[in-house]
Structure formats: structure tokens, C-alpha cells
């Protein structure tokens, strides 16, 4: 067959998918060729994951046609998609932790034989790993593997199952910059072998590094497909958002002067802090940190290196097994969360809808949660609903929270508005210390800008902020200093103005660069 007549590996025409009143995909056209890396970019909620879930057979589209290698297909289940050679690497890995790598590869496979033959699977996996440079120990149990290794397991499994179309949903979100670079090399190699690789991301640098072509989704529609060679970050960002980004997301545009940095008092003082994770294993193994008034201390690290445990021990949600936490010089180690909050510590947790807000309660109840015990919201044992309403309205207006009304359940708000409400509540008491975990994860660009502005305001007000984030650009833009967590320890604390992602990436991988803190 001539190159010109080779059919598209994937061709989706006019795909529409609705969830109730929400149109997640609105007549999307998408086509990818064998042998190319095709990136799919867009903001959160633009419909990338929905489109790929349709391709994977998880969702059935309301309208539209799907063809694979030129053949029209209709998927009723993931099984149909797998049979067409489509393999997905989901953001949350689809691996059974207690199984070995080989068992995960065999799982659900349709090959002949009822007897479990792990030995032959192990041989096949070793051979595939050798060929594509994706070495994994096929006898290891998944829970023993690092996140990067688990991702390799996912990829090798797809090859083992005979996938020709490989879809990666935000594959680099959980990787260090170095691991991401390895992955990008692997994806290029797969494309050169004739695989069709679809790469979903919103990190435009990576997209430009890996992709041949880029399709941009905005609000459920495919707005453009462009050659990666002929575009740049700025153009892609404009297509994603539909306008130029406001200034203020990069440090050079920062308006806030870093004042009086040499004689600032220490608000948060952590010494040799130790705590266990959910599985009862040590998650923090001796952390020392100081956060000063008027400072944003960023905490970077690959997910699962103790970030969540750090935030939870400071705010009293997780028992401290050793060491000390002092706030303004007062020992707050293992004090109840309420006492810590009253000592001026605000918390924006990672799990905003489970820990931060009550999803089924309305905006008012969520807004007053920190202050309903005191006047003017309380009169004796009774709530003053009118005062609560006034307080809530003021909070919503001051922080541009867009909501159907005070009485709507918080669940119905978009992620960005939920986060703005949460921040508004936590900051209303003018806390001395704010502990914010992934405050902009999963929120749209506009809300992220507002959140960044609020964090800067805390800084200029003189509050201390501990900002835990996976987004290195965010940390570099906002933080004064950045501490890197690796396996429950601080690998290094660097001046945010004198460092770069590569340096941070080495620290995140547990490698102390020769010239530490540059």
C-alpha cells in the first residue's frame, strides 16, 4: 500500500457525548496516523479524557462515527476496543497492586487455555522489555514498584496484549523531569516502529517535544490540529484558552516586592518530624523546615513522597510519631485540628471535596464552617442564619465564586469555584500560616490565576505559606524558597530565583547534585 493510501489508525468524526446537561464532546473530529505521536491538549474539562474514554470503549458516544484502520467500528465495552488493538495508559494506573507484573499482563487476556501460565508471560514480557527498552521485573508485585516502573508495566502490558494504538492520559504528571524525558524517548521509538501514539497533556513544552501533530480541544470542541514543528507554546496556549493568558503567571511579572526578608519571624518551625503513611509505614522520616512571615515556601516532589503526610501532620489530621511542630513558637505537635486552626493555621487540602468541603452541604454551610461557633454567626447554641447568609454573600462576591446560589450544594460547583470557595473560607480569618496542597490542580486557567493572586496577597500581608505542588512552573513563579521532598526527607532547599526545573528534577529523583543549592 502506498503511504498516501494508508488509512488513519484512528478516525473520529462528529463525536458527541453528553452527561446530563453537560456536553463533554461536541461534534469532535479527531484523526491520528500510524507512526505518529499525536498530542491532544486542552484545559481541564475540555473533553480530552471523555474523547479517549470513548475510544477505549468505556463510554458510548451519543453521536458520531469511529473508524480504526479504516474500518468503521462500534465499541460496546472496553473488550471491543482491546480487540481492535487499542491500549490505554490511564492517569491512575490500572494495575492490581497485589498481583505480579506477569499476572497483571495476563489479566483479562483472551488467549487459549484455562491454566494460568505465568512462566510464558514472563518470557514474553522480558522479550518485549528488551526490545523496547522497557525493562521490568515481571515477577515483582506491583506494590513493590516505583511509579515510573508501574508506568513501564502498563506500556509493556499493552504491547503484550498486541495493542497498535497507544493512548497515554497525562503520563508525565507522576514522573520526575528525567523520567519524563525517558518516556518521551520511548514514545518516539514506538512511533518509529509504526505504532500510533496519542499523548494527552496540558504541559505544552512536553507536547512540543514529543508530538508530530497537536489537536487542541476547547470546551468540548476540536478547535485546531496543527503540526508541532510550525507552532509554539504561545500559539497553543491561545488555542486552548481562546485568549492570551493574563500576565502574572511568571515571576518576572510579579508585582510583589520581597520585603524585609532578613529579619522575618519564623511562623512555622518543624524539627525532625516523623509520621506514618496510611499503610503504617514511615512516610516522613525526620523533616526540618522553617517558614517565615511573608514567605511562600514551596514543596516539590514526585507524588507520594510525603507531601500529603506533611500537610496533615502540620494541621493535626495525622498523628506525629516523632519530632516537633511549632506555630509562632507554641508547640502544636499532636494537638487537635481545631486548636491548630484557632492558632491561625489554615488548610487547603489535596482532597478538596472530601477533606476541605462537604460536597452535599450548601455553600453557606461550607462557608461558615470555621466560624459558626462564635458571634455574630452564633447566639448561644443557635445559628444566626441571616448573619451566615450575609457573611457567605460577602465571601462569594469578594472572591468571584460563580455559583447558582448560596443554597446550592457545593458538589454542583466547578472545580475552580469549589477551590475559590475553600480558599476564601480559609483566608477569611487572616491566618498566620496557610498550608495549601495542590491548590490549582484540576482547576481552569482563570481560577488558577485568582488562586495565585490570593497566595501573593497572603505574602504581602505578611502571612507564611507552605505551598505543596506538583507544578514546578507554579512553584518557580510563586515561591521564595523550594524544598524538595524525597522519600519522607528534605533532599534540599533552594532559592526559587536561582534554580531551574532540571535542578529540582534531580533532587526529586533523590539525586543530590554535586553543587547542591545553587
Amino acid at each position, binding site marked *: 500500500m502506498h503511504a498516501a493510501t494508508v488509512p488513519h489508525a484512528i478516525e473520529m468524526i462528529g463525536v458527541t457525548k453528553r452527561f446530563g446537561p453537560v456536553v463533554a464532546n461536541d461534534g469532535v473530529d479527531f484523526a491520528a496516523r500510524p507512526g505518529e505521536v499525536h498530542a491532544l491538549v486542552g484545559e481541564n474539562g475540555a473533553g480530552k479524557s471523555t474523547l479517549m474514554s470513548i475510544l477505549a470503549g*468505556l463510554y458510548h458516544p451519543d453521536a458520531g462515527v469511529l473508524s480504526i484502520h479504516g474500518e468503521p467500528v462500534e465499541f460496546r465495552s472496553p473488550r471491543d476496543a482491546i480487540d481492535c488493538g487499542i491500549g490505554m495508559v490511564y492517569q491512575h494506573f*490500572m*494495575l*492490581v497492586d*497485589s498481583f505480579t507484573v506477569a499476572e497483571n499482563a495476563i489479566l*483479562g*487476556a483472551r488467549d487459549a487455555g484455562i491454566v*494460568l501460565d505465568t512462566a510464558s508471560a514472563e518470557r514474553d514480557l522480558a522479550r518485549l522489555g528488551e526490545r523496547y527498552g522497557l525493562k521490568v521485573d515481571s515477577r515483582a508485585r506491583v506494590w513493590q514498584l516505583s511509579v515510573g516502573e508501574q508506568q513501564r508495566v502498563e506500556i509493556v502490558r499493552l504491547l503484550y496484549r498486541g495493542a497498535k494504538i497507544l493512548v497515554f492520559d497525562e503520563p508525565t504528571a507522576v514522573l520526575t523531569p528525567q523520567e519524563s524525558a525517558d518516556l518521551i524517548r520511548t514514545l518516539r521509538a514506538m512511533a518509529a516502529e509504526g505504532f500510533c501514539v496519542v499523548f494527552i497533556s496540558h504541559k505544552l513544552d512536553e507536547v512540543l517535544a514529543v508530538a508530530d501533530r497537536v489537536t487542541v480541544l476547547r470546551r468540548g470542541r476540536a478547535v485546531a490540529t496543527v503540526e508541532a514543528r510550525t507552532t509554539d507554546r504561545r500559539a497553543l496556549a491561545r488555542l486552548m484558552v481562546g485568549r492570551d493568558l493574563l500576565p502574572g503567571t511568571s515571576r518576572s511579572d510579579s508585582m510583589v516586592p520581597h520585603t524585609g526578608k532578613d529579619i522575618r519571624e519564623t511562623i512555622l518551625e518543624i524539627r525532625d518530624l516523623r509520621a506514618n503513611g496510611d499503610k503504617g509505614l514511615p512516610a516522613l522520616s525526620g523533616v526540618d523546615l522553617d517558614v517565615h512571615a511573608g514567605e511562600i515556601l514551596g514543596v516539590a516532589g514526585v507524588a507520594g513522597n510525603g507531601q500529603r503526610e506533611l500537610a496533615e501532620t502540620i494541621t493535626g489530621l495525622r498523628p506525629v510519631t516523632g519530632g516537633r511542630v511549632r506555630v509562632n513558637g507554641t508547640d502544636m505537635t499532636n494537638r487537635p485540628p481545631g486548636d491548630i486552626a484557632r492558632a491561625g493555621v489554615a488548610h487547603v487540602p489535596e482532597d478538596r471535596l472530601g477533606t476541605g468541603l462537604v460536597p452535599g452541604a450548601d455553600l453557606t454551610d461550607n462557608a461558615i464552617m470555621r466560624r459558626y461557633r462564635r458571634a455574630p454567626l452564633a447566639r448561644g447554641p443557635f445559628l444566626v442564619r441571616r448573619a451566615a447568609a450575609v457573611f457567605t454573600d460577602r465571601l462569594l462576591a469578594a472572591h468571584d465564586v460563580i455559583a447558582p446560589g448560596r443554597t446550592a450544594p457545593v458538589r454542583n460547583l466547578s472545580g475552580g469555584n469549589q477551590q475559590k470557595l475553600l480558599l476564601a473560607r480559609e483566608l477569611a480569618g487572616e491566618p498566620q500560616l496557610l498550608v495549601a496542597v495542590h491548590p490549582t490542580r484540576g482547576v481552569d486557567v482563570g481560577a488558577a490565576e485568582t488562586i495565585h493572586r490570593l497566595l501573593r496577597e497572603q505574602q504581602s500581608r505578611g502571612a507564611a505559606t507552605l505551598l505543596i505542588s506538583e507544578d514546578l512552573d507554579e512553584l518557580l513563579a510563586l515561591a521564595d524558597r523550594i524544598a524538595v521532598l524525597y522519600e519522607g526527607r528534605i533532599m534540599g532547599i533552594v532559592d526559587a530565583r536561582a534554580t531551574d526545573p532540571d535542578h529540582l528534577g534531580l533532587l526529586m529523583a533523590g539525586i543530590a547534585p554535586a553543587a547542591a543549592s545553587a
Partner: protein
Amino acid sequence: MNDITSIAFLTSVLAAAIPAGTAILYACLGELLCERAGVLNLGVEGMMLMGALGGFAVAYHTEQAWLGAIAAFAVGGALASIHALLVVSLRANQVVSGLALTLFGSGLSAFLGRDLVGRPAPASFGKVAVPLLSDIPYLGSILFRQDALVYVSYGLVPLLWWFVFRTRPGLNLRALGENPATADAMGLNVAALRYGYVIAGGALAGVGGAAISLATNPGWSENMTAGRGWIAVALVIFGTWNPARAAFGAYLFGGVEAGQFRLQGAGVPISSFYLSMLPYLFTIAVLILASRETARRRIGAPAALGRPYVREERG
């Protein structure tokens, strides 16, 4: 009377422990399949009762013990299909649905069986001695002078062990209970498979009921399983979701039950109330030990046990 330390006494207790444990064993293996698939079925007691009644009723009218056992299998499966409908399709709370089915099963069996109470069994599974094997000293009379349902269970334990740990469908079954989202993404039909295992589990519980009404105590009386279904649920945990260990536990309880009658018969001065409390005290102890979260992780409970699976809406 009997000397309770004699070999003969011990042999007779063990020989009675096996059939007494067999009823629990069937129910336990059924619950094990169900929980391995990620579904908790607390309706075992009701399914055993309905199986016991259904089995006896069919055997009573047809005078065929085997037809009774098959009917028990079908009745148990039918009751379990209600559980499957509620918890898999309608995503109802598994605990509530299971409890409701236990109450329903015991009430319905008492109602339907009121005319059969006290009737003599025209057909039941009698003791059959296996040639040669039954002549082995002690062991022969303990293991190989038993009824047909006991012999079937001898085969079922290794078969299920092999199925769960050594076959592809068994691997898929374990994945259902550990991580249904992964099983779904790997192309397994989570709902259909869970239906299958819940129904198969209920069918085995039904046979467990028949092992009482057609073998150990031929006949029907209201609530004749006397909590054995609950013991079976506890034993799945005690047996760490492993058929071989579950069998060990089932015979242990069979021994407690058999020993209780034999001790009374031997005139040991201990109140029968204490003895009849024993199985349940032991059950409570097992559940306390096993339900601590850390213990759960260590002994390898299916990670998704009790949680309905919903394919995540909204991408």
C-alpha cells in the same frame, strides 16, 4: 459411660465433626467465591435455610436425595440472584441487602415449611463406606464412612483452590475483588462476572443447607441451620479467602459442634448452654481479630470487598 480421653471417643467426635463441618464448608466456599469477586453476602444464613427446606421438600416428594441436593443448589442460587440484582445492578448497600435476605430466607422457609416440620425423610444421604480406604485404622472411619455430600466436598476444596490460584478465570476473579476498575479496563465484564459468582456462591450455600436437612439431621425444622451461615461468613475471614484454610476452619467448627453433643453424652458436668455458645463466641473472636484494619491488610482481604463498582462518570 464413655471415657472422654479414649481413642474411640476421639474417633467418634472426629467422625461426627466431618459431616457437621461439611454444611458450614459448602456455605463457606460459596461465600469465598462471592467475596473474592468483591461482593459481601450476609444472606448466607437465609440461603442455607431456603436450600435446606427446598432440598428436603423435593427429596420428600420425589424420594430422591440427589434431586433434593440439586433443588437446594437452585434455590440458593435463586435467592442469591436477588442479592446480585440489588448490589451489582442497583448498587444497594451490600450489608443491608444481605441482612434483608437472611431475614427473608428464614421467614419464608419457616412459612413454606410449616407442613413439613417433623415429617420423616423418605430419602437422605446415608453413610457410605469407601472400599479399602474405610479400612484404614482410625482415619478410615473418620474420613471414609461418610455421606455422598461429604465426598463431593472433598473434591470441591482442591478444585476451588486450583481454580482461584492456578487458572486464568481464577486470576480474573481475584482481580474483580481487588480492583474492579482494572478488571473493567482489561476487558472483563465486571457486572456479569459478579452476578455469576454471587449466584454460584448462593447455590453452594443452598447445598450447605441441604447437607443438614438431607444428611446430618434428615428432616425439616424451623431455623434448623442455627447460625451456621454466620459462622461460614466469619470462616471466610478466618480462612483468609483460601479454600484449603476455610476447610480447616469448617472442620474445626464441626468438631466444636460434634464435641458438644458427645461431651453431654459422656456426662461431662458443663452446662449445655455454655457449649452451644462456643461456636458463636469463637466467631466473634475471629471477627474482632480480622476486622482490625491493619489485620485486614496483612491477611489479604480483597481490597474492593463490599464496594459497588461504578464506572467513573465524567472524564
